[in-house]
């Protein structure tokens, strides 16, 4: 199915030609159940529409179900509009919302009809967006959801009365179940047959109406809107410009203003005239825009008030839960408990799965090894491709589990409470609660974490969050931590109670990342992004039972994106690293020299049942010889030359050439470090963090010790080592300046921290 026909682009809002599918946009407040309906309609199958020049992604899907085609006479596609409370654009997501509804994005033309999802438990506020949609004269179908929550608290929604009161079709969402598809399709049919709605309310003074009509006329003459849309666009412009003009708020993106300068001046003139005409109320504190917002709400109260009935002041089920969950003392304690459980589950549940993945990769490597003749191709496949991809696959269980748990917490309504509870902590570093969710997501991977910053309105807050998210301990650091802790520390030695050296070290590394991120946020907020902490209004949606199908979809989508992005980069880097470490080959003279040395050693080998001490001595000598040969082979390779040239910069941190080569490879992605160490230590096949050979090789290296390991661990906490993150930061900040800044600050921070750690470790005698 061709979702977007390029020939339609130029036509704007021409009548629906039968050849293309009907375009249905899905709009609504955040937490209104919009994505539930989207998944219900599309069967959970969608593709991400990535608009050029726009940072935010929307989802497109085909409306599944035969009844729909029967009713509407053809296929329909569903377009997800980012959740927003109002069409006034304050964040990148809201800019995309208005652009999608008006069909201004480069890819998607104006939708034929908008399904406006409204939360039945909070109709008045949700219908504010409906009024704005009506003003823009798009055919609207209002879809109330969560009426079961309303009923849980003893309320009831009268759909027929609401339909009559609003004057646009209203049909129950029913959580997007199949039965309601046909009803929805019929409502769409009705909306399309009706005259498109228009602004349902009037200004209190005729003079004000005339002023706005003048603005609408110049908007129309300027070619910005057609006849029908001009009035709606004029009103949207009033609110948008009135909001930005104040100077109290920065535009979502200063480099791409939502309203251009000339139009802004024209709109401001109308705003000034309106304020003049509206008299005392508007001149006092309301302003013309305040009056505009007030008129919309007044219309809602007048029309919908009788339908909703007398306001219920009683406690809802959610309020009773919140009395505990958001309690000043209990709240943070519960939050810490929830986080502890999340991390514990992430580790314990993933273990058997990781084991399974490792066995599978090992089997595949063995199969290729046995099936192919000895040579560069086999080496490339086994040491490069399979080891590289395998190193990515082993994280998938952990990442998927973390995504699943976060999705569960989000769908149940808890994540909003977590942001509320964390707001007090985040305030200390100049951020607010909303920035907490992206940071939490970054425990899995910074790439989705950075994408999650799009909901943050203030540009300063968004950029600070983007720049510190890579310091959170992502799952890609885990294999490196596991390897180094396992080799150089007595990981399972008990310290106190259930805690072991390994566990405490790991906890310390996680905390170091968190403290680093918060500290850096505080620093950035006081220097480069200095400014007042913008006000935060956070909505706490009612608690409800998460739908497993949606959690599963979240996990599938996020995990796939991780696999696709990380997989390709890691595969490419492992292959390149393998090549630059293997070529040019060491001279034949070197090989011959070591071959002779090995033969000499073998000749002096004790019998296998001989003196154990003698055997051990022989084994040590053999390993030292292997170690010496590998070192020389690496020094002859292309990577070895570069590594030797760079190594002096890392000498104060205690890293030798092979570590430096591995670190350089791990700039592409942290998890590359393990296979990079494997390749540069020449331990060959089947390298992973459990690999005995790599562990032994590391232990056998006389230049490696606990002090170097600690220094390396600290380097991994802070250093920039992820090309995917770089791409994500570039995408979200639309500039190479901030990715460059990220690389510089993270590298400097890591170098200083690792240096201090190394010196301190040597001083206490860990060398």
């Amino acid at each position, binding site marked *: 199915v061709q979702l977007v026909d390029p020939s339609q682009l130029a036509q704007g809002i021409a009548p629906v030609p039968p050849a293309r599918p009907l375009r249905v946009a899905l709009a609504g407040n955040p937490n209104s159940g919009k994505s539930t309906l989207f998944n219900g309609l599309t069967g959970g199958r969608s593709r991400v529409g990535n608009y050029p020049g726009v940072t935010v992604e929307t989802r497109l899907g085909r409306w599944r179900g035969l009844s729909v085609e029967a009713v509407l006479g053809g296929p329909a596609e569903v377009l997800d509009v980012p959740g927003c*409370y*109002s069409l*006034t654009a*304050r964040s990148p997501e809201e800019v995309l919302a208005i652009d999608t509804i008006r069909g201004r994005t480069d890819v998607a033309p104006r939708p034929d009809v908008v399904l406006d999802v409204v*939360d039945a*438990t*909070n*109709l*008045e*506020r949700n219908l*504010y967006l409906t009024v704005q949609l009506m003003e823009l004269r798009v055919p609207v179908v209002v879809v109330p959801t969560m009426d079961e929550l309303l009923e849980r608290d003893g309320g009831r929604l009268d759909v027929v009365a609401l339909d009559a009161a609003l004057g646009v079709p209203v049909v129950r969402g029913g959580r997007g179940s199949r039965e309601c598809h046909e009803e929805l399709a019929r409502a769409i049919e009705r909306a399309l047959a009706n005259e498109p709605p228009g602004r349902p309310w009037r200004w209190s003074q005729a003079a004000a109406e005339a002023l706005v009509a003048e603005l609408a006329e110049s908007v129309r003459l300027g070619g910005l809107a057609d006849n029908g849309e001009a009035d709606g666009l004029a009103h949207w412009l009033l*609110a948008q410009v*009135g*909001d*930005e*003009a*104040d*100077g*109290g*708020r920065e535009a979502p993106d200063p480099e791409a203003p939502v309203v251009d300068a000339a139009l802004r001046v024209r709109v401001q003139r109308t705003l000034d005239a309106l304020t003049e005409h509206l008299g005392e109320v508007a001149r006092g*504190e309301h*302003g013309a*825009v*305040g009056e505009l*917002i*007030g008129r919309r*709400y*007044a219309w809602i*109260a007048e029309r919908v008030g009788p339908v*909703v009935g007398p*306001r*219920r*002041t009683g406690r809802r089920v*959610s*309020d009773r839960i*919140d*009395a505990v969950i*958001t309690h*000043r003392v209990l709240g943070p304690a519960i939050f810490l408990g929830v986080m502890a459980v999340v991390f514990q589950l992430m580790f314990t549940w993933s273990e058997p799965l990781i084991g399974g993945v490792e066995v599978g990769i090992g089997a595949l490597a063995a199969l290729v090894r046995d099936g192919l003749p000895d040579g560069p191709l086999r080496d490339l496949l086994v040491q490069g491709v399979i080891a590289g991809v395998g190193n990515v696959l082993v994280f998938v269980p952990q990442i998927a589990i973390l995504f699943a748990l976060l999705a569960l917490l989000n769908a149940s309504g808890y994540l909003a409470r977590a942001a*509320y509870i964390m*707001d*007090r902590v985040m*305030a200390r570093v100049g951020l*607010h*609660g909303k920035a907490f969710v992206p940071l939490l997501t970054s425990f899995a991977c910074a790439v989705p974490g950075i994408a999650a910053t799009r909901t943050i309105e203030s540009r300063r807050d968004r950029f600070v969050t983007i720049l510190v998210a890579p310091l959170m301990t992502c799952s890609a650091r885990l294999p490196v931590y596991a390897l180094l802790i396992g080799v150089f520390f007595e990981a399972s030695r008990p310290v106190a109670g259930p805690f072991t050296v390994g566990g405490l070290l790991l906890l310390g590394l996680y905390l170091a990342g968190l403290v680093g991120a918060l500290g850096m946020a505080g620093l950035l907020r006081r220097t480069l992004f200095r400014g007042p902490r913008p*006000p*935060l*209004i*956070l*909505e*706490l949606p*009612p608690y409800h039972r998460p739908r497993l199908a949606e959690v599963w979809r979240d996990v599938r989508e996020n995990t796939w994106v991780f696999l696709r992005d990380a997989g390709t980069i890691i595969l490419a880097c492992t292959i390149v690293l393998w090549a630059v470490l293997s070529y040019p080959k060491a001279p034949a003279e070197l090989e011959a020299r070591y071959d002779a040395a090995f033969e000499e050693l073998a000749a002096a080998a004790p019998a296998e049942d001989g003196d154990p001490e003698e055997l051990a001595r022989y084994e040590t000598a053999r390993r030292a010889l292997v170690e010496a040969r590998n070192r020389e082979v690496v020094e002859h390779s292309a990577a070895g030359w570069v590594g030797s040239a760079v190594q002096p910069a890392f000498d104060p941190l205690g890293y030798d050439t092979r570590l430096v080569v591995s670190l350089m490879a791990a700039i592409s992605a942290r998890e590359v470090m393990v296979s990079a160490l494997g390749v540069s230590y020449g331990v060959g096949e089947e390298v992973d963090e459990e690999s005995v050979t790599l562990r032994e090789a590391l232990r056998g290296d006389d230049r490696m010790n606990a002090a170097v390991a600690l220094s390396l661990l600290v380097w991994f906490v802070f250093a920039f080592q992820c090309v995917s993150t770089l791409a994500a930061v570039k995408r979200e900040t639309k500039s190479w300046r901030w990715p460059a800044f990220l690389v510089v600050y993270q590298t400097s921070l890591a170098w200083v921290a690792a240096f201090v750690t190394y010196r301190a470790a040597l001083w206490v005698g860990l060398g």
Partner: protein
Amino acid sequence: MTCSLNDLNANQPALVSGLSAPAAIRHRLMEMGFVPGAEVEVLSRGTPALIRLHGGRVTLSHELARVVRVQL
């Protein structure tokens, strides 16, 4: 009697009478439903405060709650 949202006791319903804030903040709060005549109730005081507004629950930081004038 007019006071700010911060002065309200918990579980004491009141009506919004106005907002004393610069335009951007005022518009934002109004669009979220803090329009004159709207019924509000503080469910949990402190910062951020938890507030019932229409059928929803929103949290406002101390400095934001201060700008919302209410009438008992």
